[in-house]
């Protein structure tokens, strides 16, 4: 398999997942704000922090009003991690490998992009937003299903999965990080109901609420929620589960020593996390998540080095493909 094709598949997986995740956090935040009293409501700024795009945001907008933040995250093509930009990049990546991915997948991505582009105004309105985002999240899930149901489990498929899963794990940690830091400082007894609401919203942004209730049963508390999202063996968006999935995908690829080494390190690190301490202290949690993110970066780098941009044996200068490698 050509490196370029593998790289395109990897980024296709990442961008589709990113569009879905962004849709999810916008949707859930809107709901959360309706439930919290004005005084302690965190507003929309945390979403900018979650997506790590404060710098670009501040260049274009002066405040963190709902309208601006939603526009930035959903329909602003200047923001490389907005939904519209993610879908546009997903489409560009898919387009060059139309013959590799199932035809229906290409059609789905193409239609989704055109829908998102042509209906962006509806997506920005309070009323139309829910349906708009729901359709995008659905389509992303459909894409996952189509790929699993119509692509041979060859290296190409594994690259698609690895891209998707890494993006997913990354988003899970970002959401935990920002939410726990910015919502309510401590488990103040007087604010307990709202503490619950905020953790419920965290779980919901990761579609984890239902599974949490089924598998944890305990009422939603910070420690249990953290354990579920970081360590659960079975929940598809828990960091640990994601790491296992990446590891399994790598087993299907050649030359996997270095990337697998990085995955093994991450696995160990996740398991060693001290949940009790992180439940107590925001800074402990933040530190831990920082370390995780560095490891995600390492895995990405190893994959790029091993499969996409190998060290060249000959000294001939060659251009690299930068179009697909754009990242937020």
């Amino acid at each position, binding site marked *: 398999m050509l490196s370029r094709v593998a790289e395109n598949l990897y980024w296709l997986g990442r961008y589709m997942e990113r569009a879905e995740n962004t849709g999810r956090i916008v949707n859930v935040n809107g709901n959360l704000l309706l439930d919290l009293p004005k005084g302690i409501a965190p507003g929309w700024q945390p979403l900018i922090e979650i997506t790590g795009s404060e710098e670009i945001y501040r260049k274009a907008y002066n405040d963190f009003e709902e309208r601006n933040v939603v526009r930035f995250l959903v329909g602003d093509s200047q923001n490389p991690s907005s939904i519209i930009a993610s879908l546009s990049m997903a489409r560009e990546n898919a387009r*060059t490998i*139309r013959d590799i991915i199932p*035809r229906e997948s290409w059609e789905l991505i193409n239609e989704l992009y055109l829908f998102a582009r042509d209906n962006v105004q509806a997506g920005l309105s309070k009323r139309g937003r829910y349906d708009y985002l729901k359709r995008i999240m659905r389509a992303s899930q459909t894409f996952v299903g189509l790929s699993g149901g119509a692509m041979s489990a060859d290296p190409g498929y594994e690259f698609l999965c690895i891209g998707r899963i890494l993006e997913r794990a990354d988003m899970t940690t970002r959401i935990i990080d920002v939410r726990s830091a910015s919502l309510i400082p401590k488990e103040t007894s007087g604010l307990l109901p709202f503490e619950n609401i905020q953790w419920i919203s965290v779980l919901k942004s990761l579609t984890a609420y239902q599974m949490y209730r089924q598998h944890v049963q305990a009422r939603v508390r910070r420690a249990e929620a953290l354990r579920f999202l970081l360590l659960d063996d079975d929940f598809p968006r828990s960091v640990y589960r994601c790491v296992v999935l990446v590891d399994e995908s790598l087993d299907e690829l050649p*030359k996997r020593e270095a990337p697998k080494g990085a995955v093994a390190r991450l696995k160990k690190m996740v398991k060693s996390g001290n949940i009790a301490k992180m439940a107590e202290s925001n800074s402990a949690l933040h530190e831990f998540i920082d370390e995780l993110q560095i490891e995600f970066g390492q895995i990405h780098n190893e994959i790029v080095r091993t499969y996409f941009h190998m060290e060249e044996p*000959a*000294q*001939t200068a*060659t251009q690299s493909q930068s179009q697909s490698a754009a990242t937020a």
Partner: protein
Amino acid sequence: MTIRWRDYKVGGLYDEVMKGAGRPRDHARLLTRYLASLDEDELFSIQAAAELSIKEMGITFTVYTQAEGSIDRAWPLDVIPRVMAADEWRRIESGLKQRVHALNRFINDIYHDQKIIKDGKFPREVLAKSVNFRKECVGVDPPLGVWAHICGSDLVRDNDGTVYVLEDNLRVPSGVSYMLENRQVVKRVFPELFENGGILPVDDYPSQLFDCLAALSPRRSGVPEVVVLTPGIYNSAYFEHSYLAQQMGCELVEGGDLQVSDDNFVYMRTIEGLSRVDVVYRRIDDLFLDPETFRKDSTLGVPGLMRAWKAGNVALANAPGAGVADDKVVYAYVPDIIRYYLDEDPILPNVPTHLCIEEKSRAYVLKNLAKMVVKPANESGGYGMLVGPVSTKKERDAMARRIKKDPRNFIAQPVITLSTVPSIVGKHVEPRHVDLRPFILSSDQMHVTTGGLTRVAMRKGSLVVNSSQGGGSKDTWIVEGGGA
């Protein structure tokens, strides 16, 4: 409407299917009888079914527009086929082989001893002004001495029934994928005719192409690594590039996927690491092939590819520089070229051609512009042409100025009234003009496609068949015996 062949107006033209009203050609009897048996709406629902399968199969060509970027258009196909008798085709086939064989000898001679010039059979000044002559190729010995491995020659038939070669495309001719797909579609909609019509198959082309390319491999052992090099998704023929790669089971690569090592071997980057490439079927023009040698600003090509080719470590098809014979002035000399290298008379005639570089011819052309077709020597796709009978005085004057300024760059030919084939036009069947592009493969053996791609000018009276300019296409049936 039911087709009534008695009402079909051939006019004064040569029609490929009908000799005249109500009188089909022998090899078209089955076809015409079948079409006439269809009732009111059947023919149109067949045409609609064909268009739908084209959409579903994703057979497209790409048009680039400023406003919309690149868009894929559904390939235009008229389901009524063009038919030709196998006996006639066999003569054409041998004529094409003869022609391309001689052209390859010519190209090889031009890049080596230039005997044909020394012997006074080909003017040096024509070569001196050829924009497709590549001095970088002088002295290179490509495998088997063949330069133009894939050639697409355009054939036209005049009123009197004579088939002429109109031009030879020796650089990166396209269209063969449409020939193959047209057959797929038409087989689906006319299964009855294929069961007993004696129609010869066309689908062997991808394996013949692969064999043709594989035979060029510099590595003698193992299965050679053949790749198709495309400029990318914005190229109008991208569909064909990816189609052929898929059909041959080869990688479709872009310039960035390949690299050339310091010891002049070509590799492609795969997830397993670098993997050696033996043969590149390149669909990129010469000048974009290698920024080390040709255009430095090319991002489509592969730096060092020419080094590797010259070192004999990789085969390029077609070889760089093969386009030197794909020049409309050189075209005029092809009959002489055939006689010179093969000592045979040409089987297929050229369209009579006036070279504007020759003073007498030029005077004649300038005086008769309104009656002639004038073509620039090195354009393809029908661009830059003047079709005298439908031109305005202003266009003719502009052309006259261009000819006087650069006579070497122009040839003129009498207008050939292309033959016609019944075509579906709105709710009727009317004659429309066609040409034919067969493809000729040359390496250790030669192959000619069975028939080729028939292109049709869908506008009434129009002679312009290029798909980029609104032309359509037809399946081409070579029919054995009494036939379809």
